[in-house]
C-alpha cells in the first residue's frame, strides 16, 4: 500500500491550549496503514492557499479508522482548520514519512512544544518501559495527562510555571531520567541539544524533523536536511524529510 489522498470527515475538534487544537478525522484508508511518527498532508479549502499543511499523527485508531491531529495555529491555513466542526469534509493525504522505529528497550520520549503530539502516538505504540519529558512554554500542559497513562512524565516550562524551569534537558537532569533509547520531536535547537546529549551519554537517539514542504512524497526536494554521508537517493548530502524521514537516527543528519 501507499499513501492515498482522500476526503476525510471531521469527527471532533477541541482547543487544548492557546492556539493548540485537537482534531479527530475519520480517514480509514489512512488510519489502516498509519504508524506513530508519520504525518498527513492536510489541504485548505481556500484555493488561494495551494500547499498542504504537514501535520504529525498524535493518535491512530485503526478500529475506528480515525486519526487525531494536534496542531498549533501558525498561519491562515491552520487557522482555517481550527474553525472546522464535526461533519466538515477535508482533503487529506497520507500516511506520509517513515515513522519511529519501535525499540524494545527503556525509552525516553522527548517532546518540545508542538513536537509533543507525535510523541503521544509513540508513547501508546511502544510496548516497553517508557518515560516522557515534555517541554512547554507555560503551565498550559496540553496532552500531559494522556502521557501519564503510559508512564512517568517530567515537565519543563520556559517560564517556570510548572515542572522544571528551563528546557527538556534541564528536566531530564533535574529528575534523573534515564533510558537506553531517546525519541524526540521539537524545535531544531532542542533537537540539536538532545543529539549532543545522546552522543555524550552513548544513548541511541531518533529525532523527528520538520521543514517547509510542497509535495509531501519526496518528489519536489523542498524539505531536505543535511545528511552526514552521501544519501543513496539524492547522491549528495541531502535527505528528504518527507520521504526519508521525518524520523532520522540522530547521527545520520547534521542539524
Amino acid at each position, binding site marked *: 500500500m*501507499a*499513501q*492515498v*489522498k482522500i476526503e476525510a470527515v471531521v469527527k471532533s475538534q477541541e482547543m487544548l491550549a492557546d492556539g493548540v487544537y485537537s482534531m479527530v478525522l475519520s480517514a480509514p484508508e489512512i488510519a489502516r496503514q498509519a504508524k506513530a511518527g508519520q504525518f498527513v498532508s492536510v*489541504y485548505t479549502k481556500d*484555493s*488561494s*492557499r*495551494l*500547499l*498542504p499543511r504537514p501535520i504529525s499523527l498524535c493518535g491512530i485508531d485503526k478500529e475506528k479508522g480515525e486519526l487525531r491531529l494536534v496542531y498549533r495555529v501558525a498561519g491562515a491555513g491552520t487557522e482555517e482548520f481550527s474553525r472546522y466542526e464535526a461533519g466538515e469534509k477535508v482533503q487529506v*493525504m497520507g500516511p506520509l514519512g517513515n515513522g519511529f522505529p519501535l525499540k524494545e528497550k527503556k525509552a525516553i520520549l522527548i517532546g518540545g512544544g508542538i513536537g509533543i503530539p507525535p510523541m503521544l502516538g509513540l508513547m501508546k505504540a511502544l510496548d516497553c518501559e517508557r518515560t516522557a519529558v515534555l517541554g512547554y512554554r507555560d503551565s498550559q500542559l496540553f496532552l500531559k495527562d494522556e502521557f501519564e497513562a503510559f508512564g512517568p512524565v517530567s515537565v519543563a516550562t520556559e517560564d517556570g510555571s510548572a515542572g522544571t524551569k528551563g528546557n527538556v534537558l534541564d528536566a531530564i537532569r533535574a529528575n534523573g531520567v534515564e533510558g537506553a533509547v531517546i525519541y524526540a520531536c521539537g524545535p531544531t535547537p532542542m533537537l540539536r541539544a538532545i543529539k549532543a546529549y545522546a552522543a555524550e551519554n552513548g544513548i541511541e537517539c531518533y529525532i523527528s524533523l520538520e*521543514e*517547509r*514542504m*510542497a*509535495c*509531501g*512524497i*519526496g*518528489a*519536489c*526536494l*523542498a*524539505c*531536505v*536536511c543535511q545528511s552526514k554521508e552521501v544519501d543513496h*537517493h*539524492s*547522491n*549528495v*548530502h*541531502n535527505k528528504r524529510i518527507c*520521504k526519508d524521514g521525518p524520523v532520522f537516527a540522530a547521527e545520520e543528519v547534521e542539524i
Partner: protein
Amino acid sequence: MDTRVTIAGVELKNPVMTASGTFGSGAEYGEMVDLNRLGAVVTKGVANVPWPGNPTPRIAEVYGGMLNAIGLQNPGIDVFVERDIPFLKQYDTKIIVNVCGKTTEDYVEVVERLGDTAADLLEINISCPNVKEGGIAFGQDPKAVEAITREVKRHAKQPVIMKLSPNVTDITVMAKAAEAGGADALSLINTLTGMKIDIHRRTFALANKTGGFSGPAVKPVAVRMVYQAANAVRLPIIGMGGISTAEDAIEFLLAGATAVSVGTANFFNPYATTEIVDGIEAYMERYGVEDVKELIGAVK
C-alpha cells in the same frame, strides 16, 4: 477520438506531460498516478555532476501560487542514467529529460551521455532563476540562447526542446533565437522570479531570497507568452504555467501549444495529470472534436 500529438517527430499518446522539477523522475508519483496514461514524463533537471541545491527554506506559499528555490538539486547524470531512465522505461510513456548546467560544456556533456539512452526528447533548461551561474544566464540574452541551442544541437542525438524564461522583455525574441539555433521545440514558461518577506521574522521567506513563482496565479502570463511565441516561430510549443485543470490545458492548446506540462498542481492534487487527460477527452466529446490537433492554435 484522436488525442495524439507529435513533438519533433516523437508521437505522444496525449498532450499531457509533467513539468520538470515537480514530478521527480516519476517514481514517487508513480505510487499514486498511472504513468502509462501520460503523454510524457519530464524529469527533474539533471547535470553532469551531482548538485546539492540551495539551503532551506526552499519554498514559500504565496497567494494563488508558490515560490521555489530548490537550486536544481540533482544526483548527476551517472546515477540518473543507471536508475531513473530504466525506471521510466518500464512505462508506456515518452521520456523527456530536462538538462541543466553551469557552462556550455556541462550541457554538452549531459546531452552526449543521454545520446544512447532511452530518452525520447531533451529539454534544455536555460531559464532556472535559482542558480547563480548557468541556467537563466543563458536564457536572457538572445545571442546566448542561439549559441547554446546550436552547441547542444550539434551534440544531441535526440530532438532538443529549449525551455525559455518568462523573465525577459520580449519572449518572441528568445523564441526566434532558439529557432535560429536549430531548436526542435520550445517549452514555456519557466517560473517568474519572485520574492516573499516574512514580516514577523523580518527576513526573506526563502534562504535564497528570490525564487521562481509558479501556480495558478501565473497562468494568464503563460497563456499570453505561449500565444506570442506560437505566432512568432514555426516550432511546436509545450505550454506550461499554472495549469491545474483540463480547462487550463485546453486554453494553452487554443493559444498555440502542441502539448502541455502540469507542474505545481501536482503538489496540491497528485492526480492532476490524469484528471487533465480525462478532462481533455470529456471536452473533445462535448464539442465533437475528433482530433485534439484541431485545438492547437485555434484561437488566432
